[in-house]
């Protein structure tokens, strides 16, 4: 397929299209925003962990707080990984009108 992409100009156009659609206008700003949202989720998870560890609550509530803290951390890691994998497919200039704004 690599050979075909090099030989066929249509494939080359398609590869360029796929690598430039829904890409951020400014990659560093985008990554900065991603880092901030990740930090917010990580802080929430850490606060919940601290609350579960040092708070005076029943063992059942403590377990539930640990569970929610883990869930927040897993959400942050999973969504961050998804965003980074998607972003790794961007190369070259972005296409006007089809940009990826962050977070929504």
């Amino acid at each position: 397929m690599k050979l075909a992409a090099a030989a066929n100009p249509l494939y080359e156009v398609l590869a360029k299209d796929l690598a430039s659609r829904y890409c951020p206008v400014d990659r560093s700003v985008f990554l900065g925003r991603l880092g901030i949202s990740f930090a917010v989720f990580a802080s929430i998870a850490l606060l919940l962990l601290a609350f579960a560890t040092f708070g005076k609550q029943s063992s059942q509530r403590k377990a539930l707080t640990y569970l929610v803290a883990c869930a927040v951390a897993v959400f942050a890691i999973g969504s961050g990984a998804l965003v980074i994998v998607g972003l790794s497919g961007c190369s070259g200039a972005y296409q006007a009108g089809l940009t990826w704004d962050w977070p929504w």
Partner: protein
Amino acid sequence: MDLIGGLAAKYCIRQDARGFIELWGLSIALTVGAIATLRSSRFFASVLIFFVLAGGGVALATFWSCYESAGPSLGVVLPNSPARGLDAMICLSSHAVENIEGWILLVVSIVVACGLAVLGVLGPKSLTRRALVFAGAAAALLFAIGLGALLLFGISWCQSSRLF
């Protein structure tokens, strides 16, 4: 995965990122709910787990329809492009985020309906309160049925030949 395939996969992730992240959040929330309610109501926990698995299926179907139709939707039919169901795939893929958000709303309303039904059985002893809880469950279920019908209609309308 070849060059075009790899680019198409990442393109699909970017295109529907919002939907996938929302589905990911829903799956985690439902899993936490299932673990938390496993002891009190096995029925409710299994309903939640069912929707986690179904959400995975929705995510896979959305990704697959975008991945398979990425080339043709941009005007290039590859040798390994699917010959059948291409219109349906392009249709699903072009409304992926709306469909996923509709699915999330549907799941939330069904879960609320089931939760209220379980609460009605196990919870209040007063007849009036119990009636109110069951009425809420019925309303949530009716909303879910309406929304499900609307979603199915939207998807089949888009996939019909009228728009192509």
